[in-house]
């Protein structure tokens, strides 16, 4: 609650999301938006292209992926979204100048293992958490 007149003003705007908002409302959502909708994109981090074959034994690289795209309303029709992301979208619709849209970000991340030599030619096998995006969603 922001209280007083301002609260009343925002609530009015919330009932008319199209007015003054930058993102499309539920009625505006169509197939062309799917291209810009929050989703997972491929991104391969190549250790080989970095010229690290002399010290990284495995892997040659890994598919890290990244999340990109817009978080449109209603979020839950097409993707993972936190409950608060829906609230955040509503606040953004009410006050687009000050409140940002929810972020398109990873919702599920996986680990990778990397095998490499150290300076003393000892070999290290290490598990790195949260390196690969499994799923994207709105936060």
């Amino acid at each position: 609650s922001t209280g007083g007149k301002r609260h009343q003003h925002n609530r009015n705007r919330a009932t008319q999301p199209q007015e003054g908002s930058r993102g499309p409302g539920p009625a505006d959502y169509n197939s062309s938006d799917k291209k810009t909708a929050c989703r997972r994109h491929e991104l391969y981090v190549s250790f080989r292209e970095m010229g690290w074959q002399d010290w990284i034994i495995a892997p040659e690289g890994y598919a890290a992926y990244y999340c990109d795209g817009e978080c449109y309303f209603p979020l839950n029709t097409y993707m993972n979204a936190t409950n608060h992301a829906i609230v955040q979208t509503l606040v953004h619709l009410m006050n687009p100048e000050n409140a940002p849209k929810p972020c398109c970000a990873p919702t599920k991340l996986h680990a990778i293992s990397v095998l490499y030599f150290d300076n003393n030619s000892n070999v290290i096998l290490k598990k790195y958490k949260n390196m690969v995006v499994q799923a994207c969603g709105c936060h």
Partner: protein
Amino acid sequence: LDGNNEVPTGFIHRRLRTHEKREMQKEILSILGLPHRPRPHLSHGKYNSAPLFMLDLYNTMSSEDKSQSESMSNGYQTMRTTQSPHLATYQETAFLNDADMVMSFVNLVEYDRELSLQRRHHKEFKFNPSQIPKSEAVTAAGFRLYKECVSHIFRNDTFLIKVYQVVKEYPDREADLFLLESRRLRAAEEGWLEFDITSTCNLWVMNPVHNLGLQVSVETNSGQSISFKEVGLVGRDGALEKQPFMVAFFKVSEVHIRTTR
């Protein structure tokens, strides 16, 4: 890079300049928790025993991760099926499941002194686990030696191998030793031998000054000292893929905090 061969909106698509590439490499190194890229001194083009063993562990870990994510989507439990010539025991794979990091250490003894002052055959091994951060706790450590089949000795003969931790060294007399394990070997036996040195490795990590290495000796049934070569044990002069090494399994006890850059 995009799976649909489209460059997403707002994504800058261009070739990186040299300094940008360097910055990118720096960031990836930071993700890997390394201050700079390691520069190993690899005298041989071919991997020796330790990297081969570690590669087996890596493949086991990767196939497990893969089957786990598949089983998660299928709703089935998976079983480990990897069979490898280098991966020794079931126990090792059990340690692997619990470990956040595994590390192999090369033997630092440059010149073999096979005979002691009392003409006793033995081999010395030294490893340096002192650079391990204090946040990494050793859950298991093993010393691995390869034994070849020896045909010139009667196949049913047995020998007694003894692995010691060197406790104190003297210039004019034999070192003080602590027996870690003794094991009977058959002459015809072939494969990797693994000795548990977890407590010794923990001591070396905590107090590097106590790290005086290991000593290994072999005796015949009659108690006579015998050389490594005679019983088929491979030392540093043997085949690359059969060289002795140490392996340690670690569990991270602290959350890794990246330093401010």
